[in-house]
């Protein structure tokens, strides 16, 4: 404020001196010219003022970041610390204000130049989204004739971009670079400030269908996905489509958490849903019920429904739009994590059950609905800060032929060198239907995985 008044004084005197000089001039300029000059002068003054303020802002910012230069460690009673204000911000901003600069405009102009170039670019970077990349390298050894995977592959490199868009929304994008191409795994905007407790999400997203469908590859507690995901719910990508999602907390008894989600998608998800017409949208509904059983233990229950069109009728004499797939799922998760030792021990038990009702043509070309069921049961235990052991049981019919039931189980061992890398081994046994040979075969495989995270620290999955 003081500086401002000094500056205005200088400017005023300059202007008045200039005005006094004017009549003394030999050829008196036209009044318009005088006015323009006065305006120019005014603009210049304003520019100087802006520069000065910028400089002040910068010193304040710098002061805030720098270590406050307090004079040693003194008694609170004896030091006059100013709570709520960093001591240094007053001391370092005091420097430019204190000495009444005879010519404040000159250093201010310099400040303005460094501010315009250096400041603008470095500040622009602050607005970059949080960027991360997660590399997922998978190796496979052993025998599997039904669904063989490559011996070594950089299975996926997932780039995550996350930012707050404006006071009303945030956006998240996950772009997955695989061995064969690029895929926007998810890219959506979440509106966080809607009335009536509504949470709206628009974009491409993993559908809120059960648990495993919502989890990205790198956050799964196993290397592969359960058999039932591959057989009934679209494999690795699952139900992942462009659409709109609306969720809301629902009234529930005390201490229970109930959330309802309704989603509408275009209707194209892997091989589960295919939209051949614009109105073939798919819908997903999800209810989540959660309760803390104590500070360490909790249960998480879910029921989901999804409906969309499939391709069974395409190219037949039937109306293709009559062929629907209805999916139902129920999930239950029990978690235990003692708060005092949360980084050393935890336990999770999860069961998920699926029912697929798929309209299709029988071998005799009769319209029928194929009801296939599947489930997986997974548990993991954190032994210490670095090791986790887990197991999974799989059983699932096939969506197109429910009489064929694949069975499998896995043992999983995970090691964390740090929070940002992970090494995992998985033994997988499968009793799988071999379609070309028309018989069941056994698959015995060993999978290993290296995960590495660079960039922004993401949220821990729950």
């Amino acid at each position: 404020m003081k500086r401002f008044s000094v500056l205005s004084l200088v400017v005023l005197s300059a202007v008045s001196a200039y005005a006094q000089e004017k009549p003394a001039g030999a050829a008196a300029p036209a009044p318009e010219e005088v006015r323009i000059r006065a305006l120019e002068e005014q603009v210049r003054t304003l520019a100087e003022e802006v520069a000065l303020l910028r400089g002040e802002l910068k010193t304040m910012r710098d002061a805030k970041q720098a270590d406050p230069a307090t004079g040693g460690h003194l008694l609170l009673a004896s030091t006059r610390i100013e709570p709520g204000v960093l001591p240094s911000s007053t001391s370092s901003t005091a420097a430019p204000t204190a000495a009444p600069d005879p010519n404040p405009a000159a250093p201010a102009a310099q400040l303005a130049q460094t501010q315009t170039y250096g400041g603008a670019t470095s500040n622009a970077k602050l607005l970059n989204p949080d960027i991360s990349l997660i590399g997922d390298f998978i190796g496979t050894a052993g025998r599997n004739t039904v669904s063989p995977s490559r011996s070594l592959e950089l299975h996926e490199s997932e780039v995550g971009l996350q930012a707050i868009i404006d006071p009303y929304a945030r956006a998240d994008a996950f772009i997955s670079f695989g061995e064969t191409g690029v895929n926007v795994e998810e890219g959506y905007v979440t509106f966080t400030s809607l009335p009536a407790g509504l949470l709206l999400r628009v974009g491409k997203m993993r559908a809120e269908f059960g648990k495993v469908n919502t989890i990205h590859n790198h956050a799964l507690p196993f290397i592969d996905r359960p058999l039932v995901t591959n057989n009934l719910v679209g494999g690795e990508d699952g139900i992942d489509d462009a659409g709109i999602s609306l969720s809301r907390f629902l009234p529930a008894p005390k201490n229970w958490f109930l959330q309802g989600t309704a989603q509408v998608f275009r209707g194209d998800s892997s091989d589960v849903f295919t939209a051949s017409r614009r109105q073939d949208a798919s819908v997903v509904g999800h209810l989540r019920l959660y309760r803390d059983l104590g500070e360490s233990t909790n249960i998480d229950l879910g029921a989901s429904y999804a409906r969309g069109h499939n391709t069974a009728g395409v190219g037949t004499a039937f109306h293709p739009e009559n062929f629907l797939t209805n999916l139902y799922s129920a999930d239950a998760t029990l978690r235990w994590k003692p708060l005092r030792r949360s980084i050393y021990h935890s336990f999770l038990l999860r069961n998920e059950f699926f029912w697929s009702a798929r309209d299709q043509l029988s071998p005799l070309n009769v319209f029928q609905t194929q009801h296939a069921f599947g489930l997986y049961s997974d548990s993991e235990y954190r032994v210490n800060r670095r090791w986790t052991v887990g197991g999974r049981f799989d059983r699932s019919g096939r969506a197109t032929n429910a009489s064929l039931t694949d069975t499998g189980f896995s043992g999983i061992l995970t090691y964390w060198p740090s929070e940002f890398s992970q090494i995992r081994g998985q033994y997988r046994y499968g009793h799988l239907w071999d379609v070309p040979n028309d018989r069941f075969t056994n698959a015995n495989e060993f999978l290993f995985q290296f995960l590495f995270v660079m960039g922004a620290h993401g949220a821990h999955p729950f």
Partner: protein
Amino acid sequence: MRRKEMTTRSSALLAACALIFAIISPPASRADSKLRIMTATTDLASLAQEVGGEKVDVESIARGYQDPHFVEAKPSFLLKLRHADLLIVVGLELEIGWLPPLISQSTNPKIQVGAPGYFDASRFAKILEIPTGQVTRAEGDVHPLGNPHYWLDPENGLRIAKGIQNKLSEMRPGDAAYFAQRYDSFEQRLKQADEKWLAEMQPYAGRKIVTYHRSWPNFAEHFHLDVVGYVEPRPGIPPSPQHTVELIGQMKRDGVKIIVVEPYFDLKTPNAIARDTGGQVVVLMPSVGGEKEITDYFKLFDYDIAKLKQAFDTTK
């Protein structure tokens, strides 16, 4: 005919969804009631309670004996966050692993990042260990914005309380005088207590200690202690045999006898180090509520200083 049935079904489904959302009216707001404050940690809750008094309801998400880096984003916290008027966070990316999803899913516009009800306490505190130059995770789980355990310095406690006072007065101008009076009383009591604490710690000024995690720089600075090593080789990296051997050597050379451990770390390695060096493991509480008797910000320092004094006296 099937198509018709399908259309009916889908419209029924949509109608059901619409109905669900329509029936539920937004919760009636309690006019002129207490301000509902949620805090990330118990220390901030204690400071908010000091200033807010009976005009506020305060609750912390994390417990005092819990590692604040690794809180789980449980849906039960959403129920509490969605009605909060004010959310006070530690900031400096301490809660980065769990708070952002809770905030964005809370459906509470008041506490979104940058909204008036989002209060980052680190903006009022003196921050130490701000990395300069290149920052990489070769140094472990570093906090690029500085050490987030800044509340363990009473001066910072006072600064944060002042910030909270201003925020509460801004939210409830009618109670501004009440909050100012509460703050003044807090300031006076804290200064008295600090004088006592500093006097108690005076005989041990300049003593060298080892801590498990880098949780204590502000505490050590205020009470004139010298932290010379850490049980963790790097922040967030569990102890390694090689680093432990080096640390034992260093402690023997420098005559360091005290190993300060947070309540949420395993005591195996610290105990082994203590056995080798003839030192002592002291479990200090970094937060209010770490032990039952630590019910507020004052008792936190009372507890930690009593423990430290005892340890210094027995390891002379």
